[in-house]
């Protein structure tokens, strides 16, 4: 779609006239070249006030088309000469046109021939004629390479622009060598070339191709005496993505003369050496003195005379070409072939070595047009390159291709062989001619000149801008605008100079005797003035039509960006840069107010504008106060997010601005307010105002019942603000009102809130949490350990590991216990275990001095040992029978200590976490029977679990299956006999270190526990353990039996019971023979027989099982 914004006017208009009728024209800078019907070219310089004829030179014939090439500084012409009613076309190139006069002779030569004159006469006007054997239709040149391309019928002849020296002479002259013949397949009416890209059109078909160079070479040919190299052009040359193999490579002269024929890595033009057979064409000169001599010229028909055909066989076999298709077709590349439309690329024969070359089609489009099929529908073909300047060589960063039909023009992006339709230009009337500048397109219609915007810059910006910079690029496919119209009639030619559009107008119906032509130089609007006009117009749309406003701003931005990039206004560079920033700021403001998908563009545009956050906020201040309903400021919020939540951002934002920012968040994104307060770089806001906003927010939210998560962040923010305002009670109250999970979520996500500014200790909120919600703090720290935010050492520091005695620090103990109770943290077990064992042992030692010291009693069924899959293992049941416990029931009984007195003291200066509920004992929670019959001896330690929490935990740790020997050794060495539970700890340690010693202890002192003990030990011991125990018991039974007089019946029976128990296990483990050797010879047969029998049966059963398995196998 074309949008219409009338904001472009030509600033001035000059009219001048050539002496003779103008035929064609072209422009370079602000110089206009006009060819006239008296076979000359008049050269005018357009000033601000007048157009001055500076040069005029004669051409050989009537110039139908002319072009100026910057790189070669030449004027190329397509000339027509009718001699004796035979029209003949020529393509000629004029050098030294600046020094020409009509009085001086013009020197002529044919391209590719050696010159024989010296440099003393080098500065006279020189014309070089291209050797062409067919009628030419159109010419084009590449402004970077100087190469010239000629359209003849269905073929394109590419002439390579080069500089030559002759022999040892230092005389350098420009020349052209016919290099490639490309058969496009349709009758070419216009052609355009840019580096390796070639575009051509017929009446209704356009094809854009790119030459593809191969590193392979064609067959060798005879070496020439010439050295050929490219001209040294100070402007550098193009670079393509493919590297050096292209027409674009222009190395300096020195390099070339030294190495004219290098490897395939260098320019292909350096590898091609002209065949001396071609030079001078002497071999073709017929012996004209012989009347019978007839020359047969097969060059136009014989294919073999040309170079090798570099096309796949399948392409050559394709169906014959059709010039125009019936149906409209559009094929966007890159494609190698287009069905029915093969292309051949051939080297001419004069090259010694020729890299293989083929083509890739980027665009093939056949248009269907209304009206007479014989009429030329397409016209004004153009390739519009964008180069990135650099000291070494310019790099092609964008290439657009324009072609126009009668009523619509098409602009494609063809860079890098990817084809995209950028814009469609729908003219208001039938078009005849189109010319372009870097930022505008001027279409000549039957009514006048229509001026449109173009997207060449936008397409190239994608390549120019580094992706890492995250700069905004207006979309290249966005709608274009018709920005101006100027009425004109009878325009026959148009061309664009730097600041002017040059038009040739011929009145068709005026009497032929009078001069009926005029040349108009329309001064284009200065980009700055046009920019300002666009902005003025945009301002009118700002409120009423947001899209129009945005489009005009974008157009203005691209306009100025183009002016800067293409360096046409270097003097105003600073001002233009300022305007770019200004425009970016306006675009930033626009997207800031936006709420659509594009609102995030506020970030790059603000970044490009150079504005800082306070400037931006101040710009929106008024609007925000008004609270426009139409603007939701999503873009502004995105931008503020990007600034406020970027750690590197160092915006120093004052209190006033900070408050406005909070206000903006409060108004447009209240859910983010607490995050801004807690997490962002914003510091200098007023705590009172922030608190008020949060509170009002909270009330508002309660009504709406929004997410809990946001609410918890608000609560934390509120609490922190209270603390800052020195109101700890209020802060505490807010914190206490939160659930454990809510607090944990917030601080795990924003753990830095726990740390003070130096990151060395706990922040105020962290301290508050420790004092009042220590359990939550520990849980948070565990989460932070697991997500690698705060490691163990850091956490221990925060919990004051270096302050006071370690075993009095409940928080550290809790933290370590939590750490060790999950198996995924096994890697840190040794470190944790070392600390934790030290704590427990120290505490047990301390309790041995003060038997009533311990954890507070709990009132309901509970467990002191943390569960989980960590280091805390299930304690062996026999441990409950060892002192200070008196059976498993004793652990659950009511604490004797608690019964007699209220809990004595806070044992840690750091403050234990305590339940404030009374120590009541409920019968429902503990069976009555357990409490019966328990008698307490004075000073005897209480056997309840509460009083022996540390012991329970230590035992649990030692019951873990993989406790290291070093650990048990350390524990064993730290044990003191007076310590509570000494014997159980010693047993646990010895069972790992010295099983015999452990066995002895249990057999001697706790015979009733032998079986339980043995079973628990079996977890890590083999049958030998039972055997050893059995032998020990056997000896004991024997001993006991012999000293029956001294022992009670009970003791003996205890040993016997245990013996039988162990024996029952052993018979399951041993074979009958081993069992028999184990049994005492003096043993009672009736006692042992059942065991032997069981053993035997089991043994036989196993044997049978083995046999069956063998049989099955």
């Amino acid at each position, binding site marked *: 779609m074309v949008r219409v914004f009338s904001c472009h006017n030509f600033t001035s208009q000059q009219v001048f006239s050539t002496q003779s*009728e103008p035929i064609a024209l072209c422009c370079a800078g602000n110089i206009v070249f006009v060819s006239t*019907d*008296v*076979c000359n070219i008049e050269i005018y310089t357009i000033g601000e006030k007048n157009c001055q004829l500076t040069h005029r030179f*004669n051409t*050989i*014939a*009537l110039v139908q088309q002319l072009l100026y090439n910057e790189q070669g500084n030449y004027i190329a012409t397509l000339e027509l*000469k*009718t*001699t*004796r*009613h035979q029209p*003949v076309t*020529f393509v000629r190139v004029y050098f030294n046109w600046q020094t020409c006069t*009509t*009085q*001086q*002779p*013009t*020197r*002529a*030569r*044919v391209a590719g*021939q050696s*010159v*024989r*004159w010296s440099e003393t006469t080098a500065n006279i006007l020189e014309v070089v*004629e291209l*050797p062409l054997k067919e009628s030419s239709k159109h010419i084009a040149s590449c402004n970077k390479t100087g190469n010239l391309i000629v359209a003849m019928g269905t073929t394109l002849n590419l002439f390579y622009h080069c500089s030559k020296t002759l022999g040892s002479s230092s005389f350098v002259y420009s020349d052209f060598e016919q290099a490639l013949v490309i058969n496009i397949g349709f009758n070419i009416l216009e052609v355009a070339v840019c580096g390796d890209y070639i575009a051509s059109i017929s009446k209704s078909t356009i094809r854009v191709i790119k030459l593809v160079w191969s590193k392979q070479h064609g067959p060798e040919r005879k070496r020439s005496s010439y050295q050929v190299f490219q001209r040294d052009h100070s402007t550098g040359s193009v670079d393509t993505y493919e590297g050096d193999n292209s027409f674009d490579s222009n190395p300096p002269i020195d390099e070339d003369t030294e190495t004219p024929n290098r490897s395939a890595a260098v320019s292909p033009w350096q590898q091609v050496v002209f065949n001396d057979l071609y030079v*001078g*064409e*002497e071999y073709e*000169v*017929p012996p*004209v*003195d012989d*009347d*019978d001599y*007839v*020359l047969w010229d097969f060059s136009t028909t014989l294919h073999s005379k040309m170079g090798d055909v570099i096309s796949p066989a399948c392409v050559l076999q394709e169906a014959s070409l059709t010039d125009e298709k019936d149906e409209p077709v559009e094929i966007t590349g890159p494609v190698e072939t287009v069905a029915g439309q093969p292309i051949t690329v051939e080297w001419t024969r004069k090259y010694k070595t020729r890299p293989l070359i083929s083509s890739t089609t980027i665009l093939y489009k056949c248009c269907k047009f209304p009206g007479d099929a014989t009429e030329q529908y397409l016209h004004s073909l153009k390739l519009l390159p964008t180069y990135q300047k650099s000291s070494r060589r310019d790099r092609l960063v964008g290439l657009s291709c324009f072609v126009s039909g009668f009523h619509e023009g098409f602009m494609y992006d063809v860079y890098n062989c990817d084809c995209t339709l950028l814009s469609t230009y729908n003219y208001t009337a039938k078009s005849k001619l189109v010319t372009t500048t870097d930022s505008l397109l001027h279409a000549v219609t039957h009514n006048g000149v229509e001026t449109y915007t173009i997207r060449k810059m936008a397409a190239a910006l994608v390549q120019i801008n580094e992706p890492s910079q995250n700069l905004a690029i207006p979309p290249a496919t966005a709608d274009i605008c018709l920005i101006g119209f100027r009425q004109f009639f009878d325009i026959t030619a148009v061309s664009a100079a730097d600041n002017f559009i040059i038009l040739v107008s011929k009145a068709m119906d005026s009497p032929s005797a009078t001069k009926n032509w005029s040349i108009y130089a329309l001064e284009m609007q200065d980009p700055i003035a046009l920019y300002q006009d666009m902005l003025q117009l945009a301002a009118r749309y700002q409120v009423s039509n947001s899209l129009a406003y945005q489009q005009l701003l974008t157009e203005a931005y691209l306009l100025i960006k183009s002016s800067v990039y293409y360096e046409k206004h270097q003097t105003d560079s600073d001002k233009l840069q300022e305007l770019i920033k200004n425009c970016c700021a306006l675009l930033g403001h626009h997207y800031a107010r936006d709420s659509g998908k594009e609102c995030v563009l506020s970030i790059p545009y603000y970044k490009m504008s150079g504005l800082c956050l306070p400037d931006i906020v101040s710009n929106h201040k008024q609007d925000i106060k008004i609270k426009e309903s139409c603007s939701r400021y999503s873009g502004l919020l995105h931008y503020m997010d990007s600034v406020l939540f970027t750690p590197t951002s160092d915006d120093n934002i004052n209190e006033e601005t900070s408050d406005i920012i909070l206000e903006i968040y409060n108004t447009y994104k209240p859910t983010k307010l607490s995050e801004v307060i807690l997490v962002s770089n914003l510091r200098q806001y007023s705590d009172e105002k922030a608190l008020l906003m949060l509170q009002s927010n909270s009330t508002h939210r309660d009504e709406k019942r929004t997410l809990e998560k946001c609410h918890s962040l608000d609560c934390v923010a509120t609490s922190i603000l209270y603390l800052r305002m020195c109101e700890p009670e209020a802060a505490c109250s807010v914190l206490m009102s939160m659930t454990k999970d809510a607090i944990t979520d917030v601080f795990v996500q924003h753990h830095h809130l726990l740390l003070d500014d130096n990151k060395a200790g706990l922040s105020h909120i962290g301290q508050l949490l420790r004092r009042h919600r220590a359990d939550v703090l520990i849980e948070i720290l565990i989460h932070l350990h697991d997500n690698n935010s705060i490691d163990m050492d850091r956490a221990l520091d925060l919990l004051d590991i270096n302050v006071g005695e370690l075993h009095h620090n409940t928080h550290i103990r809790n933290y370590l216990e939590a750490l060790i109770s999950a198996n995924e943290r096994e890697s840190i077990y040794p470190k944790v275990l070392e600390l934790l064992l030290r704590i427990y042992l120290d505490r047990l030692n301390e309790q041995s001095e003060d038997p009533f010291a311990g954890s507070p009693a709990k009132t309901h069924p509970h467990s002191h040992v943390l569960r989980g899959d960590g280091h805390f293992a299930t304690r062996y049941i026999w441990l409950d029978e060892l002192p200070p416990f008196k059976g498993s029931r004793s652990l659950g009984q009511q604490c004797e200590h608690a019964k007699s007195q209220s809990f004595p003291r806070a044992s840690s200066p750091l403050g234990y976490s305590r339940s404030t509920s009374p120590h009541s004992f409920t019968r429902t929670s503990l069976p009555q029977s357990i409490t019966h019959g328990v008698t307490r001896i004075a000073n005897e330690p209480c056997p309840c679990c509460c009083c022996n929490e540390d012991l329970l935990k230590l035992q649990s740790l030692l019951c873990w299956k993989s406790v290291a020997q070093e650990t048990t050794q350390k524990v064993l060495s730290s044990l003191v006999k007076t310590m509570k539970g000494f014997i159980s700890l010693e047993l646990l340690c010895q069972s790992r270190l010295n099983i015999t010693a452990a066995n002895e202890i249990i057999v001697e002192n706790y015979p009733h526990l032998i079986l339980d003990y043995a079973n628990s030990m079996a977890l890590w011991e083999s049958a030998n353990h039972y055997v050893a125990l059995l032998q020990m018991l056997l000896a004991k039974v024997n001993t006991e039996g012999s000293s029956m007089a001294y022992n009670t019946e009970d003791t003996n029976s205890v040993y016997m019971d245990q013996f039988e128990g162990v024996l029952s296990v052993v018979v399951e483990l041993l074979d009958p023979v081993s069992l028999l050797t184990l049994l005492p010879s003096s043993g009672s047969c009736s006692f042992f027989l059942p065991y032997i029998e069981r053993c035997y049966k089991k043994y036989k059963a196993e044997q049978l099982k083995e046999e069956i398995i063998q049989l099955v196998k």
Partner: protein
Amino acid sequence: MAGKTQLLKVVILGDGGVGKSSLMNRFISNKFDSQSFHTIGVEFLNKDIVIDGHSYTLQIWDTAGQERFKSLRTPFYRGSDCCLLTFGVDDVQSFHNLNMWKKEFLYYADVKDGDSFPFVVLGNKVDVPPEERQVTADEAKLWCEANGRSPYYETSAKDAINVDEAFTAAVKLLLKMEERVEMRSGYTDTVNLHKNRSRKDHCQC
């Protein structure tokens, strides 16, 4: 088209040193330089003249006469409207070479009907002492008569004798020939059985 009759391409041919460049300079700028150098390659200059009330621009092509420059000059014969075959009256060889020049021109100019092409023969350097003269006017006229009745002028670039006349005559001859061609072109749909066939058009094998 206006340019067709206004611009006339005139090629001056002849052996090296017969005074082709001097003739051109005398005609265009009315100057003579006795120290002039050999022409290398091809040069041209324009001169506006009025004949019978009509103005014409003569594009006069000066060529290098030496054999070694042949490849440089021959490409520019194409599109010529008239050819001035020049010899030095003091150089009989240059006179004998006129045949060669005419053939060379007709071949490279790609003129299909050589007999109707306007050639003008110039015997230059008539200012030389009579004893140095090697070609008589009669010999020259005889050659012209045998070669399509080309007009013959004896000129002296040095003394400005007959130079303007020769060029003017060339234009008049050309115009006369043009008229004939135009008359003939009116019957292009018919086959002219009497028309001479070009040498290039038939095979010799």
